[in-house]
C-alpha cells in the first residue's frame, strides 16, 4: 500500500444533481486551472465554515496572559511585565479575581520533590524546627 494512503482520511461517495450549465462551467474551470471535479467539490466542502472561524472573537489579550500564567506557560514576573502592572502582587490579585488557579504540580511530583529536598532544606535552617525538637530530659536528682 502506498505510504501516503496510510494517513489519508477515509473517503465517502455521494450522488447529487446539478444543472447541466453549472456542470459545464465547473468542467471548464477545472480544464483551465487543473485538478478534477472531485477535488473541486471536496475543497468546496472543506472550506465551509472557515469564514466563521476566522471571524471568531479574539480572546482578551490580558485574559490570555492570565490563562498562560495559570497554566504555567509564563512566569509571574513575565506576566506582570506583559500586563504592564506595577508589581506581581497586582498580577496575583487579577488572577484571583478571574477565578484562575495558580499553576500546580501533580501532588505525587511535589511530594517526591519535597522528600528529595528535605535534607538540603534542613541544612538551610537557622532555627531548630519545632518537629525536630526532642523533649528535654529532666536532670538526674
Amino acid at each position, binding site marked *: 500500500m502506498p505510504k501516503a494512503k496510510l494517513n489519508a482520511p477515509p473517503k465517502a461517495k455521494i450522488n447529487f444533481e446539478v444543472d447541466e450549465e453549472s456542470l459545464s462551467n465547473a468542467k471548464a474551470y477545472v480544464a483551465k486551472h487543473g485538478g478534477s471535479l472531485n477535488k473541486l467539490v471536496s475543497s468546496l466542502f472543506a472550506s465551509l465554515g472557515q469564514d466563521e472561524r476566522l471571524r471568531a472573537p479574539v480572546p482578551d489579550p490580558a485574559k490570555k496572559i492570565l490563562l498562560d500564567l495559570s497554566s504555567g506557560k509564563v*512566569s509571574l514576573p513575565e506576566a506582570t511585565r506583559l500586563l504592564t502592572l*506595577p508589581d506581581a502582587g497586582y498580577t496575583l490579585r487579577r488572577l484571583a479575581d478571574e477565578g484562575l488557579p495558580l499553576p500546580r504540580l501533580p501532588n505525587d511530583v*511535589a511530594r517526591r*520533590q519535597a522528600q*528529595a529536598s528535605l535534607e538540603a*532544606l534542613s*541544612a538551610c*535552617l537557622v532555627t531548630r524546627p519545632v518537629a525536630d525538637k526532642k523533649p528535654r530530659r529532666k536532670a538526674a536528682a
Partner: protein
Amino acid sequence: MALLIPDSGPLFSLAAGGMLGVLDHFRLAITDVVKEEAVDPGARAGASPEARALSEFYAARATSIEVFATQVGHDLLALRKTHPGRPAPPNVGELSIQSLIIHLQVSGTEEMPVILFEDSWFLRNAEALARPCVVISTQAFLINAEKLGLIPSAEAARVAISTMRPTAYAGKFTATAAGKTTARRQKS
C-alpha cells in the same frame, strides 16, 4: 549552613498568603535582580499590599538577608545605560539565579544551595538549571515546611496564597524571645 535562594515568584506567593515569616527560619539570600523585582517595588507609591509586605520584610532583615550581585544584574544595568527604555529580557530573575549558581560553583562553595522557584518553573524548565544545587517548588517547600513544623498545614497555606487572603491561612507566626518566628495553629 546552606543558603535558601528564592525567586521573586515564591516571594510574592508567600507574601500573598501572609507567610513571609516562615523564611525567618532559613539562611536567606536573593540576587540583585530578584531584589529589584520583588523588594524594591514595595517602596514605590501605589505598590500592591504584597509588594509593600516584601519591602517591609526585607527592611526589617536587611542585615541578615544576603543580596548577591550577579553578572545578569550587571548586564541589565549596562543595557539600561546604553539602551534606556528597552524592556528587560524575559525571566531575568531566573537568569540571575542561574548566574549566581554558576558563580557559587566556580568559587567552590561546598554547601549546596536550595533554590526556591514558583511551581510553574518546573512545568516549563524541568532539569534546565546548572547544578550543583537543589531546586524546589513552592508547593514542595510548603510540604517540607509542614514536615519541619514551621507551618501547620501546607494545603491551607496554598489555599491562602491562591485566594490572596492571608487571613484564610490556619496558622500564624508569632515572635519568639530569640526574635525568630514560629508557626502556631490558631485556636478555633
